[in-house]
């Protein structure tokens, strides 16, 4: 941290360099981003009335005073300004404005203009990003891309947002979109949000197919900020903010007075004599801060971008948080008259957390702990009690050491050789190396020792990954007589290695070592420690080609194919082909509409594409064995490990394939004032990779990875933006995104093995209820709850349920066969509404986000809104009558706890003020803002946060569970500063 402050001070000094008053002449030219001259651009010095225009060739010439601010504007381009510090020549490169149809869109291995696009691609530029304290790249575009559902179910600063595109499209494969950072695979945290210029999302199959096997869940292309060089320009930007977090909502648990009132009424709670609000004890309202410095330097031939992002986010749980440092440098150089472009980029990032024992399980302990109990016992130690799964949460937090460090280095270089006009030959090489190192220990005052006599525990875990990538591409573009043709061919080679080591020991003579001297423990010698190591490698090789053609941006077509092979598949099925084709027709350019000036664009698009999903693990098709201790036995008087096949062998394992059709309409009306797009898609995933239940015998193991089954998704997406006001003093831009999705599992069967699975169960309540929460059945949508349906409570306080014949029966007479479908955890409709206002120097924005047509299992109520369990605390509502009765039923998973979870959330409100340029000398731009996140939720849902249900990992097929063990979501208030020197 100290180092960063010194660096900041240094930068500050550089910027306050002395200048003298002197009249200078400036000669230069204005071009677009491709170098084409712009004629008629308006140039002026701020505060002066004189205006100049760029002439033929884009050139201009005038006199100025050092320190003057030059303003450049032209129709269809973003305004540009620069402080003149004594130069005599200047090359101004204007970026096409967002509203314009020739906005550049990144499409994977290349770019197209908005007007040329024929598939479903969403592009969000930095000016439209979510403002304020943004967690990661996902949150930047939350609610701004129709069909991309982004949620933040956890308040843990170290957790990323969850992203899902167009529904659930694989069972075994990843649900996460492929994230490409400047051409290289990464994740939403690879670069700091402040360091991102634009995010493009390839939504449909025809767009994504060029990425072949990793693209079923969509592709997110992140472009980092680059120096868009003008001559000798050096700019430094600082962005910083501080934020305060509070719990979004607290569960209303009974307090000590509730306990005592109930005890007086004869309820058998224990009064332990004190008062403790356990939730308050384990949480706080933490301050976090974030600093980002970006430096642009160099000239049009050699330029440099450097970005440093430091962030220290604390969590609402005591001790939790994450400290992070991301550094990125990019060096760009051109030679041989621009024929050879070289680029080198280095991204180094590290994240560190020291969370102690703050965990979702700790949260459970804070919730269930007796409010009349004390923190410490009479010896000043943590007050512990002997009960089932019942530990002092503060003891857990403070007596656990849990340190994690993540480090990553990404080095990439590219050569782009342009021997003749229109031809580009490019080679990209990159290596990504990262490692996780964590250490965990518990002290002698932790329950591991005070209750379980382990005498201190300690473990270390280290993981390392190396990803090598090489891509060779050739691109040729030719325009003639209104025809434009763009051809791409390429080869991609990727090699990933993953290694892991873990050791665990206990029974230490002292707890002073924490995890730093594992050999001091005795459990390993006694055979009770643990140790594991692992290594895997996988390769992915692809050949790809693409042709794009358009005639005057009226008729457009694009076709691509990727032939890709993965080492993870069976010998005979390593390679797959992934073709795509798409067509576009801009009706507005037809003569019969050209006369209607109100219609700027009316483009019909249609596309078809095939993408694949890779097996989630390597070696699934190998015929291999392992020595396993769990398969061992006592043979000839000693214990030997068992030698067993690793899995049921399936050398025929092959690609999961998704076929997607997309039709869309892009429109722009009323002088580009109203614009957006509509899309309808259907996707069919075939050969789903699934751990199929197979009969054993004949098979050795009762499940087996097979290509089995088919799933479909269909949906409608709309994006409508309106520039309601775009006067220079008052601007209001409003945009709405709407997306629907309908999922259906069509079948789960495999011909080769002649087996069919009608359904599988998913999700788990956990003890002491222990039953699956969801059922995934052929012919139905993923996400259906499967539960005993409650219809009342009898006079004894027992549930009445509806049995499978539809009769009302006491729950004690029911069996698991009486469970039925009840609601679904995946929203039918997702909505985003974004607004930004500019009034003179004030900017104001707010976003609403909502999800509708889904249910959430409120696990907090399931476990704690029932007075049966006197060993644990309960919600204040536990004694409220249900169907007019007080419950006396055992804890049981019933439909009563599944609630409609429609919500509309005021997600982000930001108010900013931009000072006049040079209000402080040397400062080109200064903006201050205040912002709030997750401010208000309109919902009938009774839990903490309807959006806090996870859709990933264990919850992929059990979506819509607000888990009892969790890191609760927070509300965040931020004040920040943007400065450009």
């Amino acid at each position, binding site marked *: 941290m100290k180092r960063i402050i010194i660096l900041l001070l240094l930068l500050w000094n550089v910027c306050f360099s002395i200048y003298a008053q002197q009249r200078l002449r400036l000669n230069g030219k204005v071009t677009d981003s491709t170098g084409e001259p712009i004629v008629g651009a308006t140039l002026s010095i701020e505060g002066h009335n004189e205006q100049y225009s760029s002439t033929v060739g884009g050139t201009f010439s005038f006199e100025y005073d050092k320190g003057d601010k030059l303003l450049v504007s032209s129709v269809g381009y973003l305004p540009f300004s620069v402080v003149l510090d004594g130069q005599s020549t200047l090359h101004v490169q204007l970026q096409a404005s967002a509203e314009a149809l020739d906005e550049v869109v990144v499409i994977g291995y290349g770019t197209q203009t908005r007007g040329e696009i024929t598939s479903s691609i969403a592009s969000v530029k930095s000016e439209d990003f979510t403002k304020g304290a943004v967690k990661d790249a996902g949150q930047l575009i939350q609610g701004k891309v129709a069909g991309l559902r982004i949620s933040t179910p956890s308040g843990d600063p170290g957790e990323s947002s969850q992203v899902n595109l167009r529904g659930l499209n694989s069972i075994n494969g990843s649900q996460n979109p492929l994230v490409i950072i400047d051409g290289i695979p990464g994740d939403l945290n690879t670069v700091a949000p402040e360091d991102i210029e634009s995010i493009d999302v390839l939504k449909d199959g025809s767009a994504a197919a060029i990425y072949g096997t990793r693209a079923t869940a969509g592709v997110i292309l992140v472009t980092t900020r680059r120096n868009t060089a003008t001559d000798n320009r050096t700019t430094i930007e600082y962005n910083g903010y501080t934020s305060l977090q509070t719990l979004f909502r607290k569960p209303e648990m009974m307090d000590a007075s509730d306990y005592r009132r109930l005890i007086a009424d004869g309820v058998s709670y224990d009064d332990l004599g004190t008062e403790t609000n356990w939730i308050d004890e384990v949480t706080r309202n933490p301050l976090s801060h974030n600093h980002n410095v970006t430096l642009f330097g160099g000239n049009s031939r050699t330029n440099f971008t450097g970005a440093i992002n430091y962030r220290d986010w604390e969590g609402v749980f005591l001790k939790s948080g994450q400290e992070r440092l991301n550094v990125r440098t990019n060096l760009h150089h051109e030679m041989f008259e621009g024929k050879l472009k070289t680029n080198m980029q280095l991204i180094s990032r590290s994240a560190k957390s020291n969370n102690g024992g703050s965990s979702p399980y700790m949260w459970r302990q804070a919730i269930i702990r007796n409010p009349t109990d004390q923190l410490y016992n009479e010896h000043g130690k943590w007050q512990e009690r002997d009960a089932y799964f019942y530990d002092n949460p503060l003891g857990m937090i403070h007596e656990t050491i849990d340190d994690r460090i993540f480090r990553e280095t990404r080095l990439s270089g590219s050569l782009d050789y342009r021997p003749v006009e229109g031809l580009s030959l490019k080679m990209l090489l990159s290596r990504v190396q990262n490692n996780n190192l964590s250490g965990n220990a518990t002290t002698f005052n932790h329950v591991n020792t005070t209750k379980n006599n*382990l005498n201190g525990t300690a473990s270390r875990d280290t993981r390392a990954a190396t990803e090598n990538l090489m891509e060779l591409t*050739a691109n040729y573009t030719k325009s003639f007589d209104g025809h434009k043709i763009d051809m791409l061919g390429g080869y991609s*080679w990727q090699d990933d290695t993953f290694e892991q080591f873990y050791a665990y020991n206990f029974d230490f003579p002292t707890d002073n070592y924490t995890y730093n001297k594992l050999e001091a423990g005795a459990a390993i010698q006694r055979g009770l420690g643990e140790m594991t190591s692992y290594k895997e490698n996988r*390769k992915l090789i692809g050949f790809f080609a693409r042709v794009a053609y358009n005639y005057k941006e009226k008729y457009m077509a694009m076709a691509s194919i990727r032939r890709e092979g993965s080492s993870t598949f069976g010998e005979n099925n390593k390679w797959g082909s992934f073709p795509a084709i798409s067509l576009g027709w801009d009706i507005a350019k037809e003569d019969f509409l050209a006369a209607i000036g109100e219609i700027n664009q009316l483009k019909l698009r249609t596309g078809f594409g095939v993408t694949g999903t890779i097996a989630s693990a390597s070696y699934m098709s190998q015929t291999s064995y392992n020595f396993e201790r769990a*398969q061992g*036995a006592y043979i000839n008087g000693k214990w030997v490990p068992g030698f067993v096949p690793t899995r049921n062998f399936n050398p025929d394992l092959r690609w999961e394939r998704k076929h997607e059709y997309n039709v869309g309409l892009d429109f722009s009306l009323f002088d580009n004032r109203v614009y957006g797009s509509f899309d309808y898609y259907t996707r069919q995933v075939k050969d789903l990779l699934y751990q199929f239940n*197979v009969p054993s015998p004949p098979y050795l193991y009762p499940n087996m990875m097979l290509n089995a089954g088919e799933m479909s998704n269909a949906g409608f997406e709309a994006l409508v933006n309106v520039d309601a006001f775009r006067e220079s003093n008052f601007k209001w831009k409003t945009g709405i995104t709407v997306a629907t999705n309908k999922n259906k599992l069509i079948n789960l069967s495999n011909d080769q093995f002649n087996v069919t699975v009608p359904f599988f169960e998913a999700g788990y309540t956990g003890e*002491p209820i222990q039953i699956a929460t969801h059922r995934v059945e052929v012919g139905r949508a993923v996400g259906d709850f499967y539960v005993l349906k409650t219809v009342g409570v009898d006079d004894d306080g027992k549930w009445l349920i509806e049995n499978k014949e539809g009769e009302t029966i006491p729950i004690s007479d029911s069996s698991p066969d009486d469970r039925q479908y009840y609601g679904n955890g995946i929203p039918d409709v997702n909505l985003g509404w974004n607004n930004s206002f500019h009034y003179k120097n004030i900017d104001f924005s707010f976003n609403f986000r909502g999800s509708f047509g889904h249910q959430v299992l409120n696990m907090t109520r399931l476990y704690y809104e029932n007075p049966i369990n006197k060993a644990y605390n309960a919600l204040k509502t536990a004694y409220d009558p249900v169907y007019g009765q007080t419950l006396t039923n055992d804890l049981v998973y019933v439909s009563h706890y599944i609630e409609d979870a429609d919500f509309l959330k005021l997600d982000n409100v930001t108010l900013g003020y931009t000072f006049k340029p040079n209000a402080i000398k040397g400062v080109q731009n200064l903006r201050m803002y205040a912002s709030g996140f997750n401010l208000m939720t309109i919902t009938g849902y009774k839990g903490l946060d309807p959006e806090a249900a996870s859709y990933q990992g264990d919850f992929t097929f059990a979506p819509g569970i607000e888990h009892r063990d969790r890191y609760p979501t927070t509300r965040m208030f931020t004040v920040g500063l943007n400065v450009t020197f």
Partner: protein
Amino acid sequence: MKRIYKSIYSTILVGVGLCGFLSVNSCTNLDEEVFSEVLSKDFKPGERDLPSIVAPVYASFRSLMFGWQGYFDLQEESADHIITPVRPNGWDDAGTYRRMHQHNWTTIQWQPYNTWQQAYSSITKANMIIMQIEEDTLPLPADVASAAIAELRAARALAYYLLLDNHGNVPIVTDYRDVELPEQKTREEVYRFVVNELTEVVPFLSEEVASMYGRMNVWAAKALLAKIYLNAQVYIGEQQWEKVIAETEDIIQSGAFRLDIAYKDVFSSTNESSPEIIFAVPYDEVYGHGNQLHMKTLSPLSRLVYNMAAGPWGGNCAVPQFIDTYDQDDQRLFDSWLQGAQYNATTGDVAITYVKEVPGIGGDGTVAADNAGYRLGKYAIKNGATNNLDNDYPMFRYADILMMKAEALLRTGRENEAALLVSEVRERAFKPVPDKALVTGAELLKGSMYNYGWQEKDGTVNGNNGGADIEFGRFLDELGWEFAGEARRRQDIIRFGVFQTKSWFNHRPHARAQSRTLFPIPNDEINKNPKLDQNPGYE
């Protein structure tokens, strides 16, 4: 244009060269590099590896018998000795224990499915190894091969016996190469198969005792045969009492086993040295995980009594009506059940006092207090126990051989001979009062002392139909006292007709009681194999 082609061409050349350089292999090589698995082409097993190759066949029995919701629960919770009531922490697990107790299990009940899966896992592994030996992919000398195949077939027969006893009508698969969906067999066919297999392999099985501990030797095979003949009436409606006597007599005459001096020692954490054990499923705190009986039975407070390195879950306990049948001088009452005050190992204070009374199984809002019910203490819990005990499960032991023979004698009118054997078994339980060890043939002909009937919350037993009418009920009581907590009570009370007809604790005879003597074919298995039909009474 030519220039363009040339450039593309040269780029491809450079690229191909580079990729060859980088990946060592060629541009399109997708062979997997394997690090943490043994590829079959790289490993040629031999005789030396035989222990590790055979081990997995036995490993399945470990998690099966005493693991989570394993065979122990299947046999005990469906019977009249052991219950898992709802405890104060709300431990109900969606009523699964109540359904076991009340015989309301469904076709998706986990406990019987667990037994099915683990038994077939053992069977399929045995089939695979037999194939490897037969095909010589596991090359062995001829004598080693025939002994190994005999042992594997005997172990496989043991697994089929579990299916015969619990699910009855199950498929029989013996050839690993056969990948057709297997056909269902009748319970009688399964019975014939198991008996034939065992009879065939007996001549080839080892007679060794010490080195074959935990494995199928000739004595284990004979004990298993005796067990199957004992229940032949239940399985196929035939009485095989003389065969029971013949098989048990072989074991008795061999002199290889004897009753242990102390009853406790048969179940201790070092019981592998007990001379009484014929076949055991060995467990080990370090190498052979799976014995978690103490975790399920003990209250969390009991960890103080044993300085445990784990927090027990506090669940199952004895049915009070069963405890009432014990003679207070019967040492087995105290060797089998933890009762009364339990003392903190460090301070000497009372940590918890287990009382006999249990108000009910739960489900009606009744919650059994943390200390309600005597706990299973038969498998002695050592000081400092982790969540895995060392105690082996003695599946067949010498006392059982004597009692099987006694039952066969009793049922064939030789009650006085039977009484001699029963008295022999009782002797060590009544050391201070030896007279009480003696039983007469006339006593064995009496009914049961078990006060069968529905237990109210206050402990009174209503709908009292007692045990006096049970034929050889007294002998059933003897089995109960000797073998409590040995994962077999269900089989015994089915054979004596109690399972189908009596009430105990919060159990009443099921409306389709006879069908409940078999568990259903697991629903998932029927889904996977359409050739399987559900057992009668579960359609």
